[in-house]
């Protein structure tokens, strides 16, 4: 019988052992630090397991001894990582055995002894590889760090991911994205306030955590990049390296490369296999390495190997070795006590948040929606009961109140602040300004404004286009600004706020404003507008949304290819939003985007055609009238027309399109709703208008796919489903028929 050890206690012991580990034993490399942790933990395990009478513990014990001895000499990062992984697995197995004392012990033990054998084979390999390197005393860490730096440009070959690791990798992908964003934010903050050491720490921590986890998961590319960036940052935070714009650029490039690497990992983390190598990574590593030396390495010239060696020596002059050892490994150990580092390291920061899958969230919102309907139906029934007791009606109204609160609460869960998107913009403005040689100050207001998650995602691209335009075309270069009596530094303001049921995002620049004459000239040249046409300012500004109209004098590689603004308009409209421009020559422009708070709810007009009810989105409705017979006319072979304020508008009979039997065949007995989509208008013939309702949009069951003329279904107040009409779709249907 095996005794049941207290595993929590084991972990506690581990932590204390970590802290008391002698610093001299720990080499500068993080992996060595990790090994020490593992060794300590292994030892605790073995002690706990002594009473358990497990033969395999003896093997583990010798593995541990070897590990402790060889730990100081381990310099090969790949081998270290492999070793780490196997050891961790071995320990987990032992723990498992100790926990479920008799269930399938034999099988687990066989596995375990196999793994221990692997481990020992690997240790022998490592020991052999490490032999030529002098290892004794205080010189060891220095040698290790130099060796590492020398090889920074060479990335160990990426092994296929272990299938046990895949869930961890998935988690890593999610978490690393967060770290990258934090690091980026920190970097931009640092640029504004170079004295802010807390920002350096923020960036450092981001890379550091990524590096640690990448090491565990054997992600060599990610690990190498994070390691190189971390080296530079570490120098900076010790005040040994000036944070010049070159360094900032290199770190920003690393952030971008890291983001790409993580993106590449995404599919791999699901399917397994080898992550694709990132082109240009070696060059970037060389740049980072150069930064650490205080050299300026041009972005295009990779470091030659022969040059690297003396540089490496220089590095040890810049960095007194014992300083690095004291800061880095201690942080490393604190953060990575076990294989669960990916979760563990982040758990402390995120303890007040719970990650919930959108699927579950949607299910909750659906259910609450049903609750609201059920509640209102019960309330409706109660009205009929004259003898309902006072108590019942009081409770009923209480229930109603709770239900409404619950609904608001559940809807608010989909909301996220726009800060993430705004963050991207500060990076963008900085890059554009540097490239174009301008000085631009970006002011962000209302970062905390919340809107639907989907909207936030979808608005990011249009915003990028517009902010880029404002920085590239709007704001003038410093000398031009000074000539026109403006401050040297241009300002772009990005504002978000709630207004009514909408979110308003404004992009305000104090640049030169839109050049009406040139827009008009270009539009006429491209045949978009007839020559001599009378146009209001607003109409002229709207022309910039026309595909193929770019007013930039020269095409830069940043913007000005004449795509962009038309895409912006399309995207905004796809979100059921609107976009407006105001501009004063010489003073600047304001682009205003108005978006609905959520994509999930629309304001609709419920209409009735025969027995069916449909919903028309309010935004597409111009007006509705009961047509007089003299307004209606039929054009032979071209369908029906309705005369609206002197203009003839095609009249479509909804009942014909949807093949239902209408209440009125005679158009002058029914109603027409005039709807528009961009510059198209039409009249829809309907039987009745039932009223306005805010409805939740639902997809029409996946099995039906896309039904032409509808954009989904909605559940009405009585619990029945009604179709939401897609106005442009209806126009297409009729015009193509």
């Amino acid at each position, binding site marked *: 019988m095996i005794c049941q050890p207290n595993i929590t206690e084991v972990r506690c012991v581990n932590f204390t052992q970590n802290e008391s580990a002698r610093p001299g034993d720990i080499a500068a490399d993080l992996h060595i630090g990790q090994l020490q942790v593992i060794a300590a933990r292994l030892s605790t395990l073995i002690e706990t397991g002594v009473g358990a009478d497990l033969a395999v513990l003896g093997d583990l014990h010798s593995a541990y001894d070897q590990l402790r001895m060889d730990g100081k000499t381990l310099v090969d990062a790949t081998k270290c990582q492999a070793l780490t992984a196997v050891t961790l697995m071995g320990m987990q197995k032992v723990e498992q055995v100790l926990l479920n004392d008799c269930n399938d012990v034999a099988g687990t033990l066989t596995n375990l002894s196999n793994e221990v054998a692997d481990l020992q084979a690997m240790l022998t390999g490592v020991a052999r590889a490490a032999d030529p390197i002098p290892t004794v005393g205080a010189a060891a860490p220095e040698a290790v760090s130099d060796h590492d730096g020398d090889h920074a440009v060479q990335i160990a070959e990426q092994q296929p991911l272990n299938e046990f690791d895949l869930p961890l990798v998935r988690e890593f992908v999610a978490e690393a994205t967060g770290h990258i964003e934090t690091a980026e934010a920190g970097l931009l903050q640092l640029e504004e306030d170079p004295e802010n050491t807390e920002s350096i720490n923020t960036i450092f921590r981001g890379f550091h955590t990524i590096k640690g986890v990448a090491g565990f998961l054997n992600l060599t590319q990610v690990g190498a990049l994070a390691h190189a960036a971390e080296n530079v940052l570490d120098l900076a935070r010790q005040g040994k390296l000036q944070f010049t714009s070159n360094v900032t650029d290199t770190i920003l490039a690393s952030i971008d490369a890291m983001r790409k690497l993580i993106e590449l990992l995404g599919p791999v983390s699901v399917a397994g296999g080898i992550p694709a190598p990132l082109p240009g990574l070696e060059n970037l590593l060389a740049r980072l390495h150069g930064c650490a030396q205080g050299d300026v390495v041009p972005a295009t010239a990779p470091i030659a190997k022969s040059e690297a060696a003396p540089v490496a020596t220089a590095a040890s002059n810049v960095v007194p070795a014992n300083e690095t050892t004291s800061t880095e490994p201690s942080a490393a150990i604190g953060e990575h006590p076990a294989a669960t580092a990916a979760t563990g390291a982040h758990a402390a920061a995120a303890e007040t948040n719970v990650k919930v899958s959108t699927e579950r969230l949607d299910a909750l919102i659906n259910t609450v929606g049903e609750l609201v309907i059920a509640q209102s139906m019960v309330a409706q029934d109660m009205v009929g009961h004259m003898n309902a007791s006072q108590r019942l009606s009081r409770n009923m109204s209480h229930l109603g109140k709770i239900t409404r609160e619950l609904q608001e609460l559940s809807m608010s869960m989909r909301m996220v602040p726009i800060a993430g998107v705004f963050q991207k913009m500060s990076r963008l403005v900085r890059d554009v300004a540097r490239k174009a040689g301008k000085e631009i100050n970006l002011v962000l207001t209302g970062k905390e404004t919340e809107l639907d998650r989907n909207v936030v995602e979808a608005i990011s691209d249009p915003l990028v286009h517009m902010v880029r335009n404002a920085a590239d075309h709007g704001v003038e270069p410093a000398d031009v600004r000074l000539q026109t009596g403006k401050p040297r530094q241009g300002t772009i303001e990005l504002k978000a706020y709630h207004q009514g049921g909408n979110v308003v995002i404004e992009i305000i620049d104090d640049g030169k404003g839109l050049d009406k004459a040139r827009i008009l000239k270009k539009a006429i040249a491209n045949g978009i507008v007839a020559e001599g046409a009378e146009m209001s300012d607003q109409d002229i500004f709207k022309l910039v949304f026309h595909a193929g109209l770019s007013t930039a004098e020269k095409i830069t590689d940043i913007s000005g290819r004449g795509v962009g603004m038309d895409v912006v308009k399309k995207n905004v409209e796809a979100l059921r939003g609107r976009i407006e421009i105001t501009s004063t020559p010489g003073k600047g422009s304001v682009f205003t985007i108005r978006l609905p708070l959520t994509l999930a709810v629309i304001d609709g007009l419920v209409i009735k055609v025969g027995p069916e009810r449909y919903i028309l989105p309010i935004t597409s409705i111009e007006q509705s009238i009961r047509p007089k017979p003299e307004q209606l006319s039929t054009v032979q072979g071209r369908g029906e027309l309705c005369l609206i304020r002197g203009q003839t508008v095609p009249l479509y009979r909804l009942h014909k399109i949807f093949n239902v039997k209408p209440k009125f065949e005679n158009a002058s007995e029914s109603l027409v709703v005039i709807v528009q989509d961009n510059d198209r208008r039409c009249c829809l013939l309907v039987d009745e208008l039932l009223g306005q309702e805010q409805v939740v949009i639902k997809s029409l069951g996946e099995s*039906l796919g896309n*039904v032409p003329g509808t954009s989904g*279904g909605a559940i009405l107040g009585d619990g029945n489903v009604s179709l939401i009409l897609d106005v442009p779709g209806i126009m297409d249907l009729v015009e193509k028929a």
Partner: protein
Amino acid sequence: MSKNETNNNGGKYLTFALGKEEYGLEILKVREIIGYMDITTVPRTPSYVKGVINLRGQVISVVDLRAKFAMAPAERTEQTCIIVVEIRSAGRKLNTGIIVDRVSEVLDVSGDQIEDAPEFGSSVESDFILGMGKVGESVKILLDIDRVLAAGEITAAAGVAAAA
């Protein structure tokens, strides 16, 4: 196709009636049975798609199995039901309602009670049938509901039952 092999489709089946025939659905596919309710018709869909309903906040489509099998439409009665089934389509699970005349019972049909669907010649599709379950005197047509709902209109089913 060998007829001597024991069919491995044995298990619990929910049986229901369409006209005179009894059909069976694998019980694991059945999510719930609901009474007939108002169905919102969706224009421009095949005639056997009766429309959509609100299943606790989720909009699901409803298929008229009679129309799907090219049977004459029946009067709606008290017993007309919608069986909500979970089918797999293009790797995703989705709920669909099917309208049946009457739900009968849940039956245990063992593998040796199931015979492969008889072959009706090349013009008649029978791959949406898992097998014919012989329970007592009666024969239940055991449906592969994934295939039934994935296919277009199936014309042979009524005849199949008679031949069995």
